[in-house]
């Protein structure tokens, strides 16, 4: 009994430490201190298994020389500690220096101690580390001690594992962030040489290589030419050969085959290699491709680790470099287009004005990474007076899932007067495209026009016979429709509402796929659309396609980063909860019996003692304190895994009323006004009524604590028919939660109260989660808190009645039926064993 009390105390402390916000190192230190203090040993240390699983290093210790921390490392299998890690079995040793395991292992500093106890830290059968405790005097550790140390190890394993997962996730996250930064940077500059320099520099730094060389394939003579170099090239001879034929050297091979090459054991592996390449010890070469065409190669050499030692390239490096190269290639291609445009611009002075504007438009497009804004710029450009100069335009994008074209945006005046007003405005102010875009983006300037609304409503299946819009996608070319009535290709239904008379279409192409269509017309000034107009529109569309693709890559990347972060948060939360639940259940049950006898006898004593007897005070205290412990236990257990919900149809409002009733008195004592906001038509839903009521009670209890000097509690409930969810909210005026603790409130054992156990919200979170719902908190510091719970009306699986029929472990006794849900050992045992046949 004595023992289990200490055990509970220690384990509870350890859980608190494990769930604290300290970093792993501090947590380990606190745990070893706790062990030294409570288990009466002289020293304690935790070793963690390093990545690779072969060595253990000392990570936290008390009673040992502090310099040893991080300094000591052992092989798994070596000495007593190594043995425990290898065998995954706890061990108590009475006389350390006589132990055969120490024979081949002069663990000099350990000789100071006489006895020790050691337990492995296991997670899903894998050894994460070892906890050791030593005494200077001889001490015979008991099986209880072994058991306790193992439980502590179990308690910590979850949090150690989490810390490791967290590190891994952070690393991945950082990689994504760098990729994202690079793509952002690449897309914001257009100086070709600068861009190429950036690609080589970033690749080198990113992978940790010693240098990088970028070859570009010159299509005129089919030679690979060095365009940029970065890093340590040893001699000028290395760069003297700046041109390679296809197939020559590593870069030549890669360019021909369009697949990456990774060579880590240079110079032994010397096939295909040029003399200059043999100077390096490792090479990683990646093709740069645009639309399946190789435009060049990127070659890294000699990767080094942080301490400057040569290390081999690996698969991850290859994937990262490929991601980088594809970004780089796209942008280079883009930049070439500009260079070409610029050259043209200079060559054709008479078209100077046109191109200047096109150039500006492209610039605007390529510096905009937000897809919506980009689409807007594209259409504005089409209708801008000095640019492409159409009256109205519509942009449609291909939805590949439904195989339809969907209207995204329409730009143009709603009426002739409107058109006149806008054009004179632009004309009189002599706005440049840049200024115009800026004025368009300034909020408030824009109201959605009727034309835009109509445009957004367009849906066309991409099939032959569905009109000219679909045809533009299918044939990958533009059409100039002179007369809408007489042209058989036009589907009159689609365009009639928009008052089109004659119009032109052009496909938006990116990476060889049609991603959308632009439609233009000149409704207001009736100017005829010429073939020259159409060619300019096509040129423009090819730029726009590229920009859209870039924006998509960018937003995908952004999404990926966000989702990885969310995933990581959720992972940590759920593992924490699961580990806690299991341990809590097993300890709590052990403690319940002794508590019943202590409390039971104290009650007997209390009833026998006369009120005047001074001992009566003592018995009172015991009864009260045991009562408190029992309440804690009940909460811990409610939190344990086994409490799976038992669903039945219930009225949430009735449950809310029942829970309110529990608090009715204390609410009125504290001067708390209760306001009910129950909407009509909330149906009965599938919940575990006890658990959900407990959730409400927990929220009310917190609200009452927060408003002990009065306030207003608003309890609301409504039904969201579309989502099929009941929404419950509980809102108080208790001053809210301070910002620095808000992220902890759902963590088990987190509390700011003297008498709280910190389980109320953790339990509520678990319960709602198991119902497939959500609990959210909206905090207004200084004002109050609103908790919102959503609960699905129907459970997808496992109402009790369904479980009854599906369950194999089902038996009848005396004509009645038993159901169990495979939780406790004893019930399981019965289900599988003799009890599984039916008893009439």
């Amino acid at each position: 009994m004595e023992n289990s009390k200490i055990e509970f105390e220690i384990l509870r402390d350890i859980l608190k430490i494990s769930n604290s916000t300290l970093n792993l190192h501090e947590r380990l230190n606190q745990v070893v201190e706790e062990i030294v203090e409570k288990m009466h040993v002289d020293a304690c240390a935790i070793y963690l298994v390093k990545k690779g699983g072969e060595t253990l290093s000392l990570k936290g210790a008390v009673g040992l020389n502090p310099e040893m921390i991080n300094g000591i490392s052992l092989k798994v299998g070596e000495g007593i500690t190594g043995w425990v890690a290898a065998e995954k079995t706890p061990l108590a040793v009475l006389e350390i220096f006589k132990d055969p395991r120490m024979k081949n292992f002069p663990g000099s500093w350990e000789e100071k101690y006489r006895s020790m106890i050691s337990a492995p830290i296991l997670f899903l059968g894998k050894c994460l580390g070892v906890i050791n405790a030593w005494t200077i005097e001889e001490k015979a550790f008991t099986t209880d001690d072994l058991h306790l140390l193992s439980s502590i190890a179990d308690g910590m394993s979850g949090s150690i594992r989490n810390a490791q997962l967290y590190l891994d996730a952070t690393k991945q996250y950082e990689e994504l962030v760098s990729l994202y930064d690079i793509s952002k940077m690449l897309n914001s500059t257009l100086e070709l040489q600068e861009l190429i320099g950036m690609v080589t520099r970033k690749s080198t730094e990113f992978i940790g290589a010693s240098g990088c060389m970028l070859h570009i394939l010159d299509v005129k003579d089919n030679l690979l030419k060095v365009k940029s170099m970065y890093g340590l090239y040893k001699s000028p001879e290395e760069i003297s050969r700046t041109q390679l034929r296809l197939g020559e050297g590593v870069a030549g091979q890669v360019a021909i085959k369009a697949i990456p090459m990774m060579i880590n054991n240079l110079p032994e592996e010397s096939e295909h290699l040029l003399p200059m390449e043999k100077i390096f010890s490792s090479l990683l070469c990646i093709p740069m491709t645009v639309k399946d065409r190789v435009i060049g190669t990127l070659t890294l050499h000699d990767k080094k680790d942080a301490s400057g030692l040569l290390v081999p390239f690996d698969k991850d490096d290859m994937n990262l470099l490929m991601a980088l190269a594809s970004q780089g290639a796209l942008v280079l291609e883009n930049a070439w287009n500009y260079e070409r445009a610029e050259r043209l611009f200079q060559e054709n002075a008479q078209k100077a004005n046109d191109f200047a504007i096109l150039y500006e438009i492209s610039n605007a497009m390529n510096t905009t990474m937000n897809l919506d804004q980009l689409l807007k710029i594209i259409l504005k450009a089409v209708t801008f007076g000095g640019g492409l100069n159409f009256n109205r335009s519509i942009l449609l994008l291909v939805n590949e899932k439904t195989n339809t074209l969907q209207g995204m945006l329409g730009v143009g005046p709603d009426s002739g007067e409107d058109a006149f007003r806008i054009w004179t405005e632009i004309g009189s102010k002599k706005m440049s495209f840049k200024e115009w875009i800026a004025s368009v983006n300034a909020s408030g300037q824009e109201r959605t026009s009727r034309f835009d609304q109509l445009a957004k409503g367009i849906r066309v299946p991409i099939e032959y016979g569905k009109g000219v819009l679909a045809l533009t996608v299918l044939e990958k070319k533009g059409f100039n429709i002179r007369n809408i009535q007489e042209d058989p290709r036009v589907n009159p239904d689609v365009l009639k509402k928009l008052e089109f008379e004659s119009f032109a279409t052009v496909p938006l192409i990116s990476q060889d796929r049609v991603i959308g269509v632009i439609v233009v017309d000149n409704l207001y000034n009736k100017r005829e659309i010429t073939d020259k107009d159409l060619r300019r529109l096509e040129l423009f569309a090819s730029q726009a396609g590229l920009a859209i693709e870039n924006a998509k890559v960018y937003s995908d990347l952004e999404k990926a980063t966000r989702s990885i972060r969310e995933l990581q948060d959720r992972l940590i939360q759920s593992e924490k909860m699961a580990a806690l639940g299991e341990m809590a259940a097993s300890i709590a049950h052990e403690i319940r019996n002794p508590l019943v006898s202590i409390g039971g006898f104290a009650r007997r004593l209390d009833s026998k003692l006369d009120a005047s007897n001074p001992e009566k005070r003592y018995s009172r205290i015991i009864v009260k304190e045991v009562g408190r412990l029992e309440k804690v236990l009940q909460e811990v257990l409610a939190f344990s895994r086994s409490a799976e919900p038992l669903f039945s149809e219930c009225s949430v409002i009735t449950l809310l009323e029942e829970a309110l009733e529990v608090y009715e008195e204390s609410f009125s004592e504290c001067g708390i006004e209760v306001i009910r906001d129950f909407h009509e038509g909330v149906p009965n839903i599938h919940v575990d009524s006890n658990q959900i009521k407990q959730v409400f009670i927990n929220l009310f209890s917190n609200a009452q604590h927060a408003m002990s000097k009065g306030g207003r509690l608003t309890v609301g409930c409504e039904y969201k028919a579309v989502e099929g969810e009941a929404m419950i909210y509980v809102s108080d005026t208790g001053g809210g939660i301070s910002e620095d603790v808000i992220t902890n409130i759902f963590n088990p054992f987190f509390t700011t109260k003297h008498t709280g156990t910190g389980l109320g919200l953790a339990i509520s979170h678990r319960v709602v989660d198991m119902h497939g719902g959500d609990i959210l908190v909206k905090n207004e510091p200084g004002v109050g808190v609103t908790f919102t719970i959503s609960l699905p009306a129907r459970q997808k699986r496992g109402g009790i009645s369904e479980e009854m029929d599906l369950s194999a472990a089902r038996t009848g006794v005396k004509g009645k039926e038993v159901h169990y849900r495979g939780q406790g050992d004893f019930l399981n045992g019965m289900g599988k064993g003799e009890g599984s046949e039916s008893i009439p």
Partner: protein
Amino acid sequence: MKTVLIVDDEENIRILYKEELADEGYNVILASNGYEALEVLSVQKPDAIILDIKMPGMDGVNLLKLIKERKEDDIPVIICSAYEEYKQDFSLWASEEYIVKSSDLTKMKGALKRILK
């Protein structure tokens, strides 16, 4: 006087129940596991049984099953366990009471009274 059989593996708890129930005027017999309880049942028929679930040897579930099979003597059983998460399972199975162990025996006494009235 009504006779109650108490089956629990913890000695202190047996003593506690016994003294409390004796004060209430019951005749109390004790057993520390399922086998002992069956021995008692082979020679006499108590009016009610208070049964723990997790016990070494024959546990409460198996004992309960055997008692329920012997239809001739329909003895009501109150389950009194440290586990509260199986309440539902048992209440569907047997009509009798399921009580979570607590130092406050009021609930247990109330259940006995209800069953034996």
